[in-house]
């Protein structure tokens, strides 16, 4: 499998590590993992880094995940990399908004590694 550059956005450093571990368990060949603690940091990261996959929480301080999606789309950042939301906020409105702003998928916390695998592998096969 191709080497993947991933950006993981979550205000919890522990959750960022858990997501990284889930990606490895899903069989992804991670070349590099960029981390951001909120949407603003994620936008800054995307301005200087190329990524193949973005995973983002929604409920974060400074800039939340939905605003991040909106701004990334507006500024044309991310180079079309698939964006997967991993969050406790699983309401239909949040999902619809995330999809409207360009999210490719949605995983609800708590999640098992197989869910991450099931969502991400089809996206990665398109790369």
């Amino acid at each position, binding site marked *: 499998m191709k080497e993947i550059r991933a950006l993981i956005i979550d205000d919890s*450093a*522990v*959750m960022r*590590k858990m997501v990284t571990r889930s990606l490895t368990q899903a069989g992804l060949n991670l070349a590099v993992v960029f981390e951001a603690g909120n949407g603003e940091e994620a936008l800054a990261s995307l301005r200087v880094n190329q990524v193949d996959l973005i995973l983002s929480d929604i409920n*974060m301080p400074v800039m939340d995940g939905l605003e991040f999606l909106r701004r990334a789309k507006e500024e044309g950042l991310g180079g079309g990399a698939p964006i997967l939301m991993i969050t406790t906020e699983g*309401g239909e*409105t949040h999902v619809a908004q995330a999809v409207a702003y360009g999210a490719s998928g949605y995983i*609800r*916390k*708590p999640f098992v590694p197989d869910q991450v695998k099931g969502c991400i592998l089809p996206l990665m096969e398109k790369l």
Partner: protein
Amino acid sequence: MTSTTHPTHTLQQHCPQCDALWSRMSNPKRQGKSRVYPEGGWIPLLRSAITDVFEIMLGCPVGVTDTPLPTGTTTVTAIVGLAGQITGTMNVRCDEATACSMAGHMLGIEVTPGPESHAIVCDALGEVCNMVAGAFKARIPGVEEGCSLSIPTVITGGSYEIHSISNGERVMISFTFNESPVWVSLDLHE
């Protein structure tokens, strides 16, 4: 954290389904229930949310205990606010060693108590509380869309109590994680 307290009546019982200790506390002068009240009450939903988060994300089943909240020993408490159709707070509280154990399970490493692990332990317990609150609200029919969660706040210390100054009710569940007690309380405003 302390705040103005009001006289309260506390009812302690064991949950008929899971035998966990729970208490319902109400202010006799300002008694009331949340605007939303699920059939069967809050306990089964809260218990189910706790079980899912600990079994799925921490890979550890929870056990039963009726250990009372400690006084005078250092504990870590994570608090997440709920606002909307249901309003209040969700608290997860345990001793420092148990919080380290939770962080260790989440990260797949050993985490020992100390200044160098403090931030990561607070982060982990905050995330546990966030996930329990999220899983809990998702289980309340019709509420998912109408309730937002705050960013977690974490308190550490040896002697503190958390009081709600609003109308409403408190539900508390105690359980064991790795044989150590953990307390989850839900304070709902009217």
